[in-house]
């Protein structure tokens, strides 16, 4: 019920956003929202804390940038290539990390992501510290000029909706049900005949792919693939976004990404105070506001009903 209302709000807000906000900025938020949703699928629903998701986000951006710039891929194909790369990378990471649990899992993903960061810094095609610049936005289906920021915006919005839809469906699927069971009691799920590792791996790959989708899209929007996106702080940021919005809620990551993104943007004039303010918000969230924004709303709503 709440979800339906929220979905309508999100749809309307998304469709009208370019009217009252700077489109590129909203597109950036959408990318982070999708990224956070993908991350949430893993942490909120499979109970796996990945501290290396920036590798998929940033890695996909490089691939998309490279294939569109150097091989002349169309933007759509380029984005798919980026997401596809994230999928493969996700499978590899997953294969190595899934066998570990809890904090070890987080650490392995972090270590693997640092290695990707290293490659991004050292490989010739990424441009090192300079980043991969001048990625063309190109034409969608050979027709629509994406240099037009409205066209670009709605293209991004559609990508976001598709990604969001996939995640929503995954959570509410038979697969999602098994994931939850695994999170609750892993060895019991195993003894019931579920190949726990396969389920976790699939969840990991879906999450990585969609994180990659977000990063690939970002590369086209900004015409840039940069190290920042692959840095561990980006992995940290996406965790924060998810938590602020509400871990394990469908819309939480979206709201979290918008809140954190908008805050850092609005506060950027305050220099280092941004950090202080964001830090304070997180501390407050963790201490008294743990369900996150959406989680709290849902609690209030259900309390009213009940």
């Amino acid at each position, binding site marked *: 019920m709440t979800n339906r209302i929220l979905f309508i709000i999100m749809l309307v807000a998304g469709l009208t956003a370019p009217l009252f906000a700077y489109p590129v900025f909203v597109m950036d938020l959408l990318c982070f929202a999708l990224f956070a949703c993908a991350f949430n699928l893993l942490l909120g629903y499979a109970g796996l804390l990945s501290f290396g998701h920036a590798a998929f986000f940033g890695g996909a951006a490089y691939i998309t940038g490279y294939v569109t710039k150097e091989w002349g891929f169309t933007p759509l194909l380029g984005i798919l290539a980026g997401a596809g790369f994230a999928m493969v990378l996700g499978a590899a990471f997953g294969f190595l990390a899934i066998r570990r649990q809890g904090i070890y899992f987080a650490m392995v993903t*972090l*270590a693997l992501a*640092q290695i990707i960061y290293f490659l991004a810094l050292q490989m010739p095609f990424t441009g090192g510290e300079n980043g991969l610049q001048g990625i063309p936005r190109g034409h969608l289906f050979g027709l629509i000029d994406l240099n037009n920021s409205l066209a670009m915006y709605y293209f991004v919005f559609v990508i976001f909706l598709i990604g969001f839809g996939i995640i929503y469906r995954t959570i509410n699927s038979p697969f999602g049900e098994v994931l939850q069971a695994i999170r609750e009691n892993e060895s019991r799920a195993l003894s019931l005949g579920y190949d726990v590792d396969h389920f976790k791996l699939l969840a990991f790959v879906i999450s990585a792919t969609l994180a990659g989708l977000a990063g690939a899209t970002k590369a086209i929007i900004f015409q840039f693939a940069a190290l920042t996106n692959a840095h561990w702080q980006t992995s940290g940021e996406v*965790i924060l976004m998810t938590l602020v919005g509400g871990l394990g809620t469908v819309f939480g990551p979206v709201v979290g990404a918008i809140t954190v993104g908008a805050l850092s943007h609005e506060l950027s004039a305050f220099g280092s*105070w941004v950090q202080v303010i*964001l*830090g304070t918000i997180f501390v407050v969230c963790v201490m008294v506001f743990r369900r996150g924004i959406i989680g709290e709303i849902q609690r209030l709503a259900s309390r009213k009903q009940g």
Partner: protein
Amino acid sequence: MSIQVILAQALLGLNVGVFYAMLSLGLAVIFGLLNIINFAHGAMYMLGAFIALIGYSLLEQWFGISLQIGFWASLLVAPVIVGILGVLIERLMLKRLYELDHIYGLLLTFGITLILQGLFANYFNVSGTPYPGQPEALSGVVNLGFMYFPTYRLFAIVFSLVVCFATWWAIEHTKLGSRLRAGVENPDLTQAFGLNVPLMVTLTFAFGAGLAGLAGVLAAPIYSVSPLMGADLIIVVFAVVVIGGMGSIMGAILSGLALGLVEGLTKVFYPPAASTVIFFLMVLVLLFRPAGLFGKEK
């Protein structure tokens, strides 16, 4: 490449290694015994360095107190102040999170890190302020035959090693370690046995924090004091703790030293990988020894 060069670089590696060891030790105490992932450990290290800096050169300017806290005094004052901060953080905040997923502790300390870094970045140059208070007695160089090595760096190496091994001894040769682990695993029952778990936890946290502060003071004369000096370091130190094996005090110390060496030598043979080699090793270690080099399989 001559043996001298390798030796010189190894010594520099050891220099880095003692800082890894000290930080990962503090982290391992908090992380391994209390199960708290203290992301703010890097910020506490930074804080230690700033306390030394402020104590030495800014007290008068800031607070109008004509008092100078020299380097030696800082070695005591800074860990105590950082330890008190640790007590506050633990008592006022972390304490309420123990029943929840560990991720909340991580997030809280992440937030605290942002606050601390941000605060200092407002007043100090991000790229660093030199610490002027290096004691005269340690300012020379020692001729080691194959190189000139700054006396202070030698002092830092020896001092850190002493602190690390003393801590290890204290934890392993008292019941403290097992009591803490029990207190974390099942605090209710441990208290029912008559152990004051909250106090133990607070003091341990404060101690770990104090170690970070101490490392910060030691680092100040070598590196410039900067609000971000702990930011990237913390990630590396996490890796060191994992490689050493969570919960293993000796593991944290030894792997800190060893990885400092490895990193130092990588800087010679393939400099670009120096900042990443530890993560490669971490992946390898976790693949073949999931519990870390010194960790016990759970």
